[in-house]
């Protein structure tokens, strides 16, 4: 696995709270090749955002702490990396797109200044050249009148437009990997599709890899090649995207797919939206065995006894369920 762009092994990130240590990420393996799109799915609190932020060490430490594991970026372990090295990697090698485009831009500067600032942190070029680069980036992400709009302030842009600006900013230093943390959650549906199309287009044009964090299965289907499903801080399933939708192996993944609202059925059959019963277990003291067992219809005694290992049951398909073969 040495040649991979990003290779995370056994990552554990815990947070100290007044009640004890929260095991937010508890042994996650994840790897990504150059030019590939990997999607990480899971509900709120499954640890997907923490995993993403830990790659760039954007979590607050303390209270956060990387307890174990390695994050190999092109073979270099980022866990012990110094802050200066991390600053260098941020945006120059790995770009990051946030969930909230409405508040992720500084209100007191024009968008051009903000993009130019990012560029100038990593490249020694003049202010003027950086502003030109900013305008170039804005037109790349299809903002009309880019050369004029660089002089506008964030409040003069709509949500979708601001997310385009954020993408332009993340792309401005030609990173090899873009981490997008729920980039479309805060946007309405038509704009979501535009932003996902834009991400796909940028990926194809610039040949970078994308790590897409999301809780929407629809977003996964539209963009990713490979999917990792996370539950309660752990990976429960990993599969190519078609295989995952065709034949989900883990009961949790099955539940997730069943709970996608379907307009075609709802109109004719008056079916209620299916939900997974129960809630995510407390990560302060996670259960001994399978963390999904309490909400799982297939759970047996053995499930609660010991944590199920993440097994590779077909090439590229891994699942952490001891009954995967029977129930799929």
């Amino acid at each position, binding site marked *: 696995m040495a040649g991979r762009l990003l290779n995370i092994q056994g990552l554990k990130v815990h947070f100290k709270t007044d009640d004890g240590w929260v095991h937010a990420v508890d042994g996650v393996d994840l790897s990504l090749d150059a030019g590939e799109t990997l999607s990480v799915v899971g509900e709120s609190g499954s640890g997907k955002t923490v995993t993403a932020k830990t790659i*760039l060490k*954007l979590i607050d430490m303390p209270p956060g702490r990387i307890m174990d594991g390695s994050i190999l970026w092109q073979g270099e372990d980022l866990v012990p990396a110094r802050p200066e090295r991390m*600053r*260098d*990697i*941020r*945006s*120059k090698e790995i*770009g*990051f797109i*946030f969930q*909230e485009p409405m*508040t*992720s*831009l*500084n*209100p*007191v*500067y*024009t968008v051009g200044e903000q993009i130019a*600032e*990012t560029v100038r*942190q*990593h490249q020694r070029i003049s202010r003027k050249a950086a502003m030109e680069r900013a305008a170039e980036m804005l037109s790349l*992400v*299809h*903002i*009309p*009148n880019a050369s*004029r*709009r660089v*002089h*506008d*302030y964030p409040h*003069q842009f*709509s949500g*979708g*437009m601001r997310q*385009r600006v*954020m993408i332009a*900013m*993340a792309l401005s*230093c030609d990173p090899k990997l873009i981490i997008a943390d729920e980039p479309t959650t805060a946007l309405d549906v038509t704009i979501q599709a*535009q932003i996902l*199309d*834009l991400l*796909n*287009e940028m990926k*194809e*044009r610039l040949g970078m890899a994308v790590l897409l964090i999301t809780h929407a299965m629809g977003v996964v289907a*539209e963009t990713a090649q490979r999917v990792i499903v996370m539950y309660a801080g752990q990976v429960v399933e990993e599969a190519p995207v078609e295989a995952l939708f065709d034949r989900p192996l883990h009961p949790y993944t099955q539940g997730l797919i069943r709970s996608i609202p379907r307009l075609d059925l709802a109109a004719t059959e008056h079916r209620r939206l299916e939900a997974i019963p129960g809630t995510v277990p407390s990560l302060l003291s996670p259960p001994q065995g399978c963390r999904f067992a309490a909400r799982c219809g297939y759970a047996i005694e053995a499930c609660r006894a010991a944590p199920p290992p993440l097994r590779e049951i077909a090439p590229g398909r891994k699942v952490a369920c001891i009954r995967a073969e029977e129930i799929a």
Partner: protein
Amino acid sequence: MAGSIPASAIASPAAAARPRIGPWREAWRRFRKHRLAVASAVVLGTIILAVLIGPLFWSLPIDEIDFTARLEGPSLAHPLGTDDLGQDLLARILYGGRISLAVGFAAMSVAVSVGVLVGAIAGMAGGRLDAALMWLTDLFLSLPQLPLLLLIIYLFRDALTGVVGQELGVFILIVTVIGAFNWMQVARLVRAQFFSLREKEFVEAARALGASRARLVWRHILPNALGPVIVAATIDVAAAIIAESTLSFLGLGFPPDIPTWGRLLFDAKDNLDFAPHWALFPGLAIFLTVVSINFVGDGLRDALDPRRVQ
């Protein structure tokens, strides 16, 4: 799926025609709506202009003694009257205003610099350093200011004037002392702003894009914290002018030959019965300046408060 997606074709012509609205232009637009603040800004501007270039037009010397014109009320020769030595009060007020305003703005700069520094360090560091700095701030807030001011000036005036000369010495001492007792509000404001701003998404976004800590503070957090600081700064100018007047009135400010507004009041106090104009005009100058600064501060608060959208 790939291919060009025009983000919004309808929005483009409008975007081309619309003028740019920066945050400062927007603030100015809102400031203009505050009538009292605009009027105050005009008054304040007039006072500043008068003390700056007034002495060029009103060329009577401030220290020409004329015993034939002692304690005269306003007249054509002396529009604001004369004092007990027959010195022209208008000339003295114009000259003294320079000192009073200079003290006000210089002391404000000291207070704001110290306040921003302390507040920024506390707000960024958090933890023990924050606790220590806030403890220091509370300590300063709880000190009885006037007795301490008097004591410090009494102790150090002679030492300092011996080194840099009397006028400059007193100026530096007064500015430092007033500044040193007025930074606490700014420090608290800045700290509170930092605490909320450093959690903002755009700060995290800037960090994710490789900004260093110094850059985050200087470029991203501080400019966003500036609104309330500017408002506090205007109030500080007024407070410093009052403090200087108080010190001068108590005879511990500038020496008698430098007629600051407070000093003029001090000199006038024994003659209130038969020459009320002597105290009236310097008092009016202090009053107008302080009131107009406060109203300007009010207007700025409304203009710079991002939550107010009109």
